[in-house]
Each structure stands twice: as structure tokens, then as C-alpha cells.
């Protein structure tokens, strides 16, 4: 029927007619879009703007397009809402579906065409990179989909209503009622049922599944390669929804009685549903918020019920007056629908809470395909079993812990709100060996069962509210910890947590940033001093060997060392420890973009621990063992050309500037004499090699001296002193110590330069890096 509709002459004639009718709106919309284009062009011309800002402008265009979609749809289908126009259009030699389809098509084109043209122009003007080009295209596509969906949806509502104002009200209400209903149910479920958490189940695509005006914003919200399946399924649903609404509109248009125009609604059930739905949602929302503010267990239910009745009835009466144009309409059937809806809503909430055993449900392992437990996906049966056992330990005790029968507004929320407060607590025990599944600092477990058949099962349990082991614990802590330990040592955990192996399936090639192993020295206060780098060859053969060695070490390693870089090091390293790490990136298989492992732009460092035998042996075999400090090149550490800058960040508090001046003065004299002695013309090359080594030597000497005093019994680190009354004295002593260290360093420096001058009177700067290892300038400290 539809193909016939589009091809017949009635469709073409009516399409042209409807399109002409939409001309005014189209012109206004085009002018607004044009203004946006001119504004962007002006900014480009004046400010030499070269940003990739097309997506932002397209998004603004889209908001305007959706507004005009709403206005245009109301105008286009206003022929249904006037008895005289119904006479005219009804008598035309056409079927009502053809009339609807032609008007719908004309309306969509009148909005979509200017939007598409303007967006493509903006994309051409303000897109610089392939990524932004793709994003812009994606935005245009999803916006067009949203325009089609919204226009069709409004057409459906227009066919169900008898007046424009009712169409407008119902369109807005219908977009909001679904979102409100889902959000409310989820809110109640998360409030009442342990394990059900709003934040873990707030599935935006479902929340907005019947709200076409929000479609494209959801797509953009999820625009990320990792969300590809969500985006595709959401878009597939949106297309399905649009097609479904389209055919439903055709059906409704053929069933709509022409005489219902100017009569409020074409179908008497619609105002009842809207009144009941909107009232329940409004009452539920306000009741929910009011109930949350109350602080007495079951008293929350009373507060909720009070506000629910007040708000829901008020909303109901207001909508009834609006829809009936006064009190004339029959209120009794609507009230019955409203009461039934309220009763059903409340019954479902209570059934969910008490009747269905959701709170104690643990899926059988035989039906689970995989389970995601705190961001790690387990698919091996033994690991799935471990997760279900942890889950079982929790639910076995859940009735006692959560005060069964549950009431709305329980204290579970407060655990959640406190989660962020606990996140900094690691500073109290940073010297402990950190364990990833450590219960301390933890607030909740997130479990997602991916079943072989059926929907995923999501649970979040707020398992603890404490910051140290002395606090009371709610569940069987010992049992949970033993299960967690077993889980930590599974290959799946290690594979998932390790940045080198993570995303292996996506990786096209391995890249080590700056192609180095970086050596840094931990200074005990949460930061590191770059101390040098070992330059690695960039060839694939070397990288593959390194990757294999690292992978062996990682899988042999205990769990605790397998999480991300600095935080982990910070928690395990001791003051003055050497830290070797790789800054790792990769090139994605599916795009040309480079990524760091882990979260977006956050750099991830892979720590080469002292017991990474395979890795260190591999590097040693390649004559690149970072433990041999002669392999280190300070000049390239942290990417800085000025070694003194790196040294400056060593973190001493003494008169460092004086020392730096001293070193520079010595260096200049030394440099001059060395070059004179060796008849060196390329001073910069000499400087790069010899001065870098000199600073490296000073660095290690400083470290040695510092450690010597740091480890001595008399040393009191003012950063960690408990003697707050005499803290000033402690710092004074500390500065004196540093001055003393600097004096010793000066002596060391003088000796170094003197020895160097003696040893290198005939020294010639090396030409290439490969000569460096043979260079007789190797420093002996």
C-alpha cells in the first residue's frame, strides 16, 4: 500500500500542496540556519578560528530543527483539527492514508532539507579531522532520524486529537510520561530492593525509548567506539520505532472519524490514559522526592503517600479541565482509569519489593554466559562460580543487613553518597601492599550477569560503609575476602586488569611512548623524579619480544601489581625506590587513532617490577638493562632538554637555586676547559652528552646521600613528623641537612669535573647514540 501511496498522482499533488503550505516555516528555519552559518564564518574570519567545531554547531542546528519539527507538524496536521478543512480535505479524491503520508513527507522534507544543507555546509567549513568529520556525519544522520521519528510521532498524536492545543499538550506529555514512568520505577526499585541500584540500571536508551524528541541526544551521548553495540541497537530501535509509529499512524488515519475535529480527542481512551499517566508520574515524582527528604523509615511511605495523593489529584483535575475545556466532561471513567493505574503502579512496586524474590536471586551458573564483576568480565566457569558465591554470601544475609521488609528511602543511599569520601583513604595505609579487591575503601560491588538466554541481570550491593578494618562489617567478610582473593589470581582478572594485555584484540601495533623505559625515583610524597631513560629500538621484532616477556611476567605476577600506573606505584613504592615503567599506547585496528590504554587520555604506565625476570632478562640480553645506570640517558628523561629542570623537580627544600647556579658555573668552566683541551668545535653536542652524564651522576649521588641520611635513625622527616609543636624546628633541621647535602654534592661535583678533565683531555664527542656505550666517559660514582 505504501509504495502505491508514494507513487500515485494524488500523493504527488498533495505533497506539493503541503510543501507549499510549509514554505513559510521552511523559510524562517532556513534564515535561522543561515544566520548560524554567517556567524560561524564571521568568527572564522575575525579570529582565524580553526577549531573542529562543526559538531557543536550541528547540535545547535538540531535543537532548532526539533523545535521547527514540532511547530511544523502541528501546522501541517492542523487540517484535521478544523471542521471546515476536514470537509475540504475529506472530499478530495484521495484516501486518508495518502493524505497523511503526503503531508508527513512534505513536512519532514521542509525541516530536514534546510537542516541537511546547512549542516553539510558547516561540516565543510568547520571540520578539520577525520574524527570530527565522522562525528558530524553521525550527528546529521541521527538528527534526521530524530526529525523523522518526532514528526511521525506528532502526526500520530495529531490523528488521535481533535484540536491543535490538545495535540501539543499530548505530544509533550507522551514524550515525558514514559521517561517519568521508567525513571520512577527504577527509582523505587533502587530505593527498596537491595542489589538494585538506580545508577547501575539507568539505561538511557530504554528511558527515552518512546520519546522521539530525545532520540538523537541519546545517540550523541553514547557516541564512542566502545559503545558501538549500544549505539547500533539504539539506532536500530529508533528506526523500528519510527517505522512502527508510521504504520500505526496510517492505521489510525484510516480509522479516525472526521467528525471528531474540534472535539478534543478522536479516541476517548487517549485523554484518560494521558490524564492517568501524567498524574501518576507527577504524583509519584513529587512523592518520591518528598519521601526522600523524610528521615524516618516507614514514615517515608506516609510522606510519599500524602504528597502522591495531593499532587496526582491536582494534576489530574488540571488536565481534566484542560482536556474537557471546563468541568463538563465525564470525570468518572477517567477517575477509574487513574485509580486503577495508581493501584497497579503501587502493586507492582510492592510486588517487586516483597513478592518476587529479586533481592535474593542469584542466577544459576549453568545459565550464565559471562559475568562482569567490578569492570572485569569473567567467562570461565570457575570464575563465574566464584562471583556467584560472593553474590550468594551477600544475599544469604541481606534480610538481616537491610532490615527486611524493606522500606522506601533506606540508608543504602547514604552508603552511595559516602563512596567518594572514602576514595582518598588509601593515604593512611599507602605503605601496605595494595590489593585490588581490598574491601577497605570499597563501597559497593557491581555485578552484571550476561545470561545465555534473556536479559542481563544487574546488581549493585553496598557492602560496607567503613574506612578501616576496625569498623563493623555487615556481611561475612572473611568468606568474601577469600573468594575475592581467588578471583584476583585468575588469569581472566590479570588479563583484564593489565594494560598491556587489555584491548589486545583491538591493538594493531604496540607503541611505547618515547620508545623508552623510563626510570624515575620515588620521593615519598606521591610524585616522582625523572632520572633517566633507556632508549628502546622501535622495530617490531624488538617490541614483540618485549611484549612476550612482559606478558609472561604479568601472568606470573600476583594480582596486586596489575592495576594502573602511578596510583599503584604510589601505594607500594618506598621513598627513594627506583621505578621503571613503560608508557604504553597502541594503534587501534579499526581506526587510525592512537590511544592510551585505560581511560581516555589518562596515561597508563606499566611498572617493570624487580621480579619481572623475563622482561629484565630480555632487556639485559639486548644490552638495555635499566638497572645498569650507565644505560640511562638523563637528557631524554621526561622529554626535557634541560637536565637541570628535571633535577629541579627532585623536591628538595633547601637553597637549591644557589646549588643550581653553582652547578651551572662549574659546568660552564668545565665545558670551556674540556672543549679547549679536546679542541672540540661542536659545543652543543659535547654539552648534550657530557653535561647530561654529569647531572645523572649528581642525581645518583644525591639519591645516595639522601637515602643514607633518610635511613639513619636520627633522621626525622618533617613531612611525617607527629611532633606538631616542634614542627618548625623539624623543618629547620631538615633545611640544615639539605644544605649539608648540597655542600657534599658540591664537593662531589668538583671531584667529578676534575677527574673528568684529567681523563678526557683527548676526549672527542661521539657522533651517534650507538657509540655511547663504548664511550670512555662512563661515570663511576
Amino acid at each position, binding site marked *: 500500500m505504501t509504495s502505491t501511496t508514494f507513487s500515485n498522482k494524488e500523493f504527488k499533488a498533495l505533497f506539493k500542496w503541503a510543501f507549499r*503550505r510549509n514554505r513559510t516555516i521552511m523559510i524562517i528555519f532556513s534564515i535561522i540556519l543561515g544566520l548560524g552559518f554567517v556567524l560561524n564564518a564571521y568568527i572564522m574570519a575575525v579570529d582565524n578560528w580553526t577549531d573542529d567545531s562543526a559538531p557543536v554547531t550541528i547540535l545547535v542546528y538540531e535543537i532548532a530543527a526539533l523545535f521547527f519539527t514540532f511547530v511544523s507538524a502541528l501546522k501541517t496536521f492542523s487540517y484535521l483539527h478544523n471542521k*471546515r478543512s476536514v470537509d475540504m480535505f475529506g*472530499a478530495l*479524491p*484521495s*484516501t486518508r492514508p495518502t493524505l497523511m503520508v503526503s503531508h508527513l513527507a512534505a513536512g519532514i522534507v521542509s525541516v530536514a532539507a534546510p537542516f541537511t544543507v546547512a549542516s553539510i555546509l558547516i561540516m565543510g567549513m568547520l571540520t578539520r579531522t577525520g574524527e570530527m568529520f565522522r562525528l558530524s556525519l553521525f550527528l546529521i544522520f541521527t538528527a534526521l532520524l530524530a526529525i523523522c521519528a518526532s514528526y511521525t510521532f506528532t502526526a500520530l498524536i495529531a490523528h488521535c486529537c481533535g484540536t491543535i492545543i490538545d495535540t501539543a499538550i499530548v505530544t509533550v506529555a507522551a514524550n515525558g510520561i514514559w521517561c517519568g514512568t521508567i525513571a520512577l520505577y527504577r527509582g523505587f526499585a533502587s530505593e527498596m530492593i537491595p542489589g538494585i541500584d538506580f545508577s547501575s540500571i539507568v539505561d538511557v536508551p530504554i528511558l527515552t525509548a518512546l520519546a522521539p524528541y530525545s532520540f538523537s541526544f541519546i545517540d550523541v551521548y553514547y557516541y564512542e567506539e566502545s559503545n558501538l553495540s549500544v549505539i547500533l541497537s539504539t539506532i536500530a530501535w529508533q528506526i523500528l520505532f519510527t517505522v512502527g509509529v508510521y504504520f500505526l499512524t496510517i492505521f489510525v488515519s484510516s480509522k479516525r*472519524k*472526521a467528525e471528531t475535529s474540534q472535539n478534543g480527542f478522536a479516541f476517548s481512551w487517549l485523554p484518560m490514559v494521558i490524564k492517568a499517566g501524567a498524574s501518576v508520574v507527577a504524583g509519584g515524582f513529587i512523592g518520591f522526592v518528598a519521601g526522600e527528604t523524610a528521615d524516618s523509615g516507614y514514615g517515608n511511605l506516609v510522606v510519599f503517600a500524602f504528597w502522591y495523593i495531593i499532587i496526582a489529584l491536582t494534576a489530574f483535575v488540571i488536565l481534566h479541565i484542560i482536556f474537557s475545556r471546563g468541568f463538563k466532561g465525564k470525570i468518572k471513567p477517567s477517575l477509574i482509569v487513574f485509580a486503577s493505574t495508581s493501584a497497579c503502579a503501587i502493586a507492582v512496586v510492592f510486588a517487586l519489593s516483597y513478592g518476587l524474590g529479586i533481592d535474593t536471586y542469584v542466577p544459576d551458573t549453568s545459565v550464565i554466559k559471562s559475568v562482569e564483576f567490578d569492570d572485569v568480565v569473567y567467562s570461565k566457569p570457575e570464575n563465574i562460580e566464584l562471583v556467584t558465591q560472593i553474590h550468594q554470601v551477600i544475599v544469604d544475609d541481606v534480610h538481616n543487613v537491610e532490615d527486611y521488609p524493606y522500606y522506601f528511602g533506606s540508608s543504602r543511599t547514604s552508603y552511595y553518597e559516602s563512596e567518594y569520601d572514602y576514595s582518598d583513604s588509601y593515604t593512611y595505609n599507602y605503605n601496605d601492599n595494595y590489593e585490588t579487591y581490598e574491601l577497605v575503601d570499597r563501597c559497593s560491588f557491581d555485578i552484571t550477569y550476561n545470561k545465555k538466554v534473556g536479559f542481563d541481570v544487574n546488581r549493585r550491593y553496598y557492602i560496607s560503609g567503613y574506612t578501616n578494618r576496625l569498623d563493623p562489617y555487615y556481611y561475612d567478610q572473611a568468606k568474601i575476602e577469600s573468594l575475592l582473593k581467588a578471583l584476583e589470581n585468575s588469569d581472566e582478572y590479570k588479563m583484564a586488569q593489565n594494560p598491556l594485555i587489555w584491548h589486545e584484540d583491538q591493538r594493531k601495533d604496540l607503541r611505547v611512548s618515547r620508545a623508552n623505559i623510563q626510570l624515575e625515583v620515588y620521593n615519598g610524597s606521591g610524585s616522582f623524579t625523572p632520572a633517566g631513560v633507556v632508549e628502546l629500538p622501535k622495530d617490531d621484532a624488538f617490541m614483540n619480544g618485549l611484549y612476550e616477556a612482559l606478558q609472561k611476567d604479568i601472568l606470573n605476577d600476583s594480582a596486586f601489581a596489575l592495576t594502573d600506573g602511578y596510583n599503584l606505584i604510589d601505594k607500594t613504592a618506598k621513598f627513594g625506590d627506583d621505578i621503571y615503567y613503560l608508557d604504553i599506547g597502541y594503534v587501534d585496528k579499526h581506526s587510525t587513532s592512537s590511544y592510551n590504554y585505560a581511560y581516555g587520555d589518562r596515561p597508563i604506565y606499566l611498572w617493570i617490577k624487580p621480579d619481572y625476570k623475563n622482561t629484565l632478562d630480555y632487556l639485559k640480553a639486548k644490552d638495555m638493562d635499566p638497572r645498569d645506570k650507565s644505560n640511562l640517558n638523563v637528557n631524554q628523561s621526561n622529554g626535557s632538554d634541560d637536565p637541570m629542570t628535571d633535577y629541579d623537580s627532585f623536591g628538595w627544600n633547601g637553597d637549591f637555586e644557589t646549588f643550581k647556579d653553582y652547578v651551572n658555573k662549574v659546568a660552564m668552566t668545565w665545558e670551556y676547559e674540556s672543549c679547549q683541551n679536546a679542541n672540540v668545535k661542536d659545543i652543543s653536542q659535547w654539552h648534550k652528552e657530557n653535561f647530561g652524564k654529569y647531572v645523572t651522576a649528581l642525581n645518583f649521588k644525591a639519591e645516595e646521600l639522601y637515602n643514607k641520611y633518610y635511613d639513619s635513625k636520627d633522621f626525622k622527616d618533617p613531612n611525617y613528623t607527629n611532633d606538631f609543636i616542634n614542627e618548625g624546628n623539624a623543618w629547620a633541621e631538615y633545611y640544615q641537612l639539605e644544605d649539608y647535602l648540597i655542600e657534599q654534592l658540591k664537593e662531589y661535583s668538583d671531584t667529578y669535573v676534575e677527574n673528568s678533565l684529567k681523563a678526557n683531555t683527548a676526549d672527542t664527542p661521539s657522533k651517534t647514540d650507538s657509540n655511547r656505550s663504548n664511550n670512555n666517559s662512563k661515570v663511576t660514582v
Partner: protein
Amino acid sequence: MLTINNITKNFGEKVALDNLSFKIPDGSVFGLIGSNGSGKSTLLRIISGVYEPDGGAVEIDGESTFENPDIKGQCFFISDFPYFYNNSTVANLAVLYRSLYPNWNEEKFQKLCCIFPIKTTDRIINMSKGMQRQAALMLALSTCPKYLMLDEIFDGLDPVVRQLIKKLLVEMVTENNSTIIIASHNLRELEDVCDHIGLIHKGGIILEKELDEAKLGIHRVQAVFENEIGEGLLSSLDIVKLQRQGKLMNMTIRGSGEEIEKKIREFDPIYMEMLPLTLEEVFISEMEVVGYDIDNILK
């Protein structure tokens, strides 16, 4: 042939048309008359496919008119308040109708544009009521419809234009064998142009026949009798209405004129005169029969 088969139409609890059936022969001008709210406009809307009947069907040459573009292409309906968009002009509506109606006659349209004093590029919405109807009629006639439904078409037209329109309608029937259905309360105008009439009241048909037949089937007789007339005369005639003024009797009698005259003469009237009824008198007489008269309304 336009056949109306058991048409029923309800608006909520109100019955607008109740099992209505009659036929309208091709090439006729059918006057649809009836009391206010009798269902004339509703019937026209059903015939033209605007409303879907709740029961029964309207068929043209055996095919239902509802949702039938082919049949509706042969029809045109001008409602009692023709609708025009704000920016509608005769010219741009002609563009729409030209594409939609298979029998659109451009030559005729141009001719009508010359006949009617309307500028085709003016916005119709700004025209007077009468001019708007003329515009609607120009477009309707240009589609050369086989069935033309007109609701209160004479409203707001001056006598000259009324004459003009009647002439054009008759021409259309003569030239194209078109069928015209006119619903109107202006019975004087209908009498001039219609050859058939249908009288509707409360959703039902009271009478449907040729105008002449309708007019000839009912007569007003004034007669004076020497003596008191007994029940014999009154019962032998189908008297619709009887008024006495002394010896003068005013009677509205159904039946053939000759027969009525013959029966009255049998009672030796001193004076007797048979007067023809106007359509309006026929309407009033018939409506009185079903209780729709001033006396009943005032009760």
C-alpha cells in the same frame, strides 16, 4: 445512479441519519430539504466521502464513495462554509485541483474566470462570503464533476449571481449529464432549479420524488358548501390540513387534482378553487404531518 442504502450515522448518542435509503437518478438536480439538524449536511458529507457512515453505504454506479479516490474524483463537494487557507487563491487551488481531478477542464476554468468577477490571484480569505462561494463554485465547475454536492450554495449571493449559478448548473446537467445535489433552506431557489426533491426530518426521509410529482400530488383547495359537510367528504379525501372560516374551507389534500375535484363536486360546493402549492408550502405541509409546525413548536 447514486444509491443511498440504509445509511446510519450517529454522533455520540445523537442519531443524525437513521437507516436512510433512496436513489438519485443521473442527470438530475436533487434538492435536499429538511428541518434544521435533520441531517442534510451530514448526508452530503457522507455522499462526498468526508464522513464514514456507521451503517449502510453510499454507492455510485455500484461502488462505495468512502475512501474511493476514483469515485471521489468524479464528485465535488462545497460545504456550507467553504474552507480556504490564509494564503489560498483561486489560482493556487486550481493547481491542486488540476492535479487531483481527472476531468479538470482548463478551458472551462478560464471561461469561468471571465464570467465571475474574481481576481484569481487574490487571497480568497479576504473576500466576502458571496465571493468566496463564487470562487468555490468556479473551481468546482472546472473539475467537471459527475456529482456535485452543494450545501447552502445560495447563501450570501445576490439575485443576479443566483440566477447565473442556476443557469450554469442547468448547463452542466444538460452538457455533462451531471447530477447535482443541493441542500438548502432556500426553497424558492430550489424550486427553480431542482427536478427532484428529498425531504429529510430527524435523520429519516419523509418524501423523495420528482418535484412536479411532489407538487402535483398535493393541492390546496378552497371551497364553500351550502350545507354542513359531513364526515363522508372528509373521510374520502387524504386531507393533510383543514381550516374552516365560516362556510369557507381551506384544505390541503394529497392526491391527484382530478380525483380531488371530482370528489368535492359530488357535494355541490357553491364555490371551489384548486390552487397550486409552492415548494415551501409542500415542505410546510409535509412537515406538519410529522408534527413539525409552528403550533407544535409554540406548545
